[in-house]
């Protein structure tokens, strides 16, 4: 009886919120599928070229070779005769990089603005929220296009443009969380032991506001990847870099060849899908109401 009780207590110990969330996440099959899918995609874009060498810009075969016709080029070639597999493997890196960099910029600006607005309130809140609304009412894609054309397209400017148009959502979410959490007693308790505003914002409130923000960050990665694809499709991608969106954009006029646009499209689809699955899984894992299941 006693040993059972101690065993139970041992199980009870050292269960940090993060650990508990991970335990919940592990049980979530779709989220695990998402993790596996995303890992495969990342590994393929990182190491795929070791096994399948080839420059995606090289014209290596006849144009518009359908998939399965030539053993050297299993997925065929595009309208210029460039290898599609080489494009997929090298194009994934920039796509994912822009997606995550844009998400990081989004989170950085959004969390800072939202945290300061929500914590300080008053005129600071008013000012920051008016700025946020200003960015929110701009049509995102058009604004991003303007930014990219202004500052010559490169991976960095594209990531910054995407980040700059998509942070208002995060700012509003962060502000809402801060407004809620700053009322809680442990924030007053932190002030009562002499903590300063800066410490309370970043060390007391933010860690408690993180769960929904982490979820929103994963979803932002997906949106940013689509955004990059959209910009590349419109010809505003980095001209020196192959990306999935660029492959689709370059081949969009060739209506009788389905494969040059379908494969990069599928790659984008599976990436965004897996990121969304992970985001949903994190959402469930952090939601205490679903913990009991």
């Amino acid at each position, binding site marked *: 009886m006693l040993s059972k009780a101690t065993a139970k207590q041992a199980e009870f110990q050292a269960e940090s919120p993060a650990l508990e969330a991970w335990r919940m996440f592990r049980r979530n099959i779709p989220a695990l599928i998402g993790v596996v899918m995303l890992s495969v995609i990342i590994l393929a874009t990182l190491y795929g070229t070791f096994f399948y060498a080839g420059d995606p810009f090289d014209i290596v075969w006849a144009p518009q070779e359908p998939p399965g016709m030539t053993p050297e080029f299993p997925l065929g070639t595009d309208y210029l005769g460039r290898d599609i597999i080489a494009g997929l493997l090298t194009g994934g890196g920039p796509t994912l990089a822009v997606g995550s960099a844009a998400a990081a910029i989004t989170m950085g600006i959004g969390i800072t603005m939202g945290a300061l607005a929500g914590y300080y309130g008053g005129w600071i809140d008013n000012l920051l929220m008016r700025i946020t609304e200003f960015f929110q009412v701009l049509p995102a894609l058009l604004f991003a296009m303007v930014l990219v054309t202004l500052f010559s397209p490169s991976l960095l400017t594209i990531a910054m443009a995407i980040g700059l148009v998509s942070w208002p959502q995060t700012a509003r979410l962060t502000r809402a969380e801060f407004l809620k959490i700053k009322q809680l*007693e442990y924030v*007053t308790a932190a002030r009562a032991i*002499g903590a300063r505003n800066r410490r309370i914002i970043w060390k007391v409130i933010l860690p408690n506001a993180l769960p929904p923000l982490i979820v929103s960050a994963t979803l932002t990665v997906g949106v940013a990847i689509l955004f990059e694809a959209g910009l590349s499709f419109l010809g505003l991608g980095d001209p020196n870099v192959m990306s999935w969106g660029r492959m689709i954009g370059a081949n969009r006029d060739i209506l009788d060849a389905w494969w040059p646009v379908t494969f990069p499209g599928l790659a984008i689809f599976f990436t965004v899908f897996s990121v969304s699955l992970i985001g949903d899984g994190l959402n469930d894992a952090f939601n205490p109401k679903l913990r009991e299941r």
Partner: protein
Amino acid sequence: MSSLLEIEDLRVTFNTRYGEVTALDSVSLQVNEGETLGVVGESGCGKSITALSVMGLIPMPPGRVAGGAIRLNGEDLTQASERRMQALRGGEMAMIFQEPMTSLNPVFTVGAQIAEAIMLHQNVDRSQAMRRAVALLDRVGIPSPDQRARDYPHQLSGGMRQRVMIAMAVSCRPKVLIADEPTTALDVTVQAQIFDLLNEIQREYGSAIILITHDMGAISEMADRVAVMYAGRVIEEARADDVLDFPQHPYARGLISCIPALGKRDGGATDMLAEIPGVVPPLHLLGAGCAFADRCAARAPRCELEKPHLFAHGHHPVACHAVEEGRL
């Protein structure tokens, strides 16, 4: 001799949608080293506002210290800079909150939170602070403290959490310890343990304790002196046994008679619990007269017109016309 902490004529107002209301009206209290001052009253009497004013934690706006002074060792806290207050909070003075369930940060271990409090005021590194935290947990009577230090708040019971809060509050040996209804959320048996702990800590550190409560039992166990508050004013102040045995103000009498007595049953029928009819009036509806007048059995015309002030009475200071005029 001047006291360690002196609140003098403190007036705190809040801007509400009813206009500016006075939450504290000429409140004067003092507490000495090693002494426990009990502050009692119903909800909404200004007890917690008094505590938060001392700590400088009144939200401003809407709150405002409209007058008076709070002196800690002669230093007026109402004039102190925010920087200075941050140094004092948790250092010279600390506070224990009502709800141990919600006053600990859920995402950090309790050890880390106590260590944090130590590092805010003392020049020690994290591992030293952690060791001090474990020692403090041991001091407040938490078994196997080095393991509990690695626990998260939700893994501890209410009583344990309140002990953690106390450990955090006394981590820098504060001169003034404010306990805002520290046992309201706890079981009766745990309450007694927490009071014992507070008494021990006071003996050891010589802190002054301001105990805010509406539990007269807590007062009789803990307090040396008592201030009874009503609608933002102190209406009676005396040694604890004086107030308990000879309450003067009708409100204080009411509070004391509301204490249910176990096993004391005169007639055959079950005694009804005593109560004070009515509620504390909303602050924005306070008139010119005594705030308690509407609920008072000894009400006279003068009570409706003129606010009573604390005056030296046979036993101790009281603010009541009826007592002053000898009608009660």
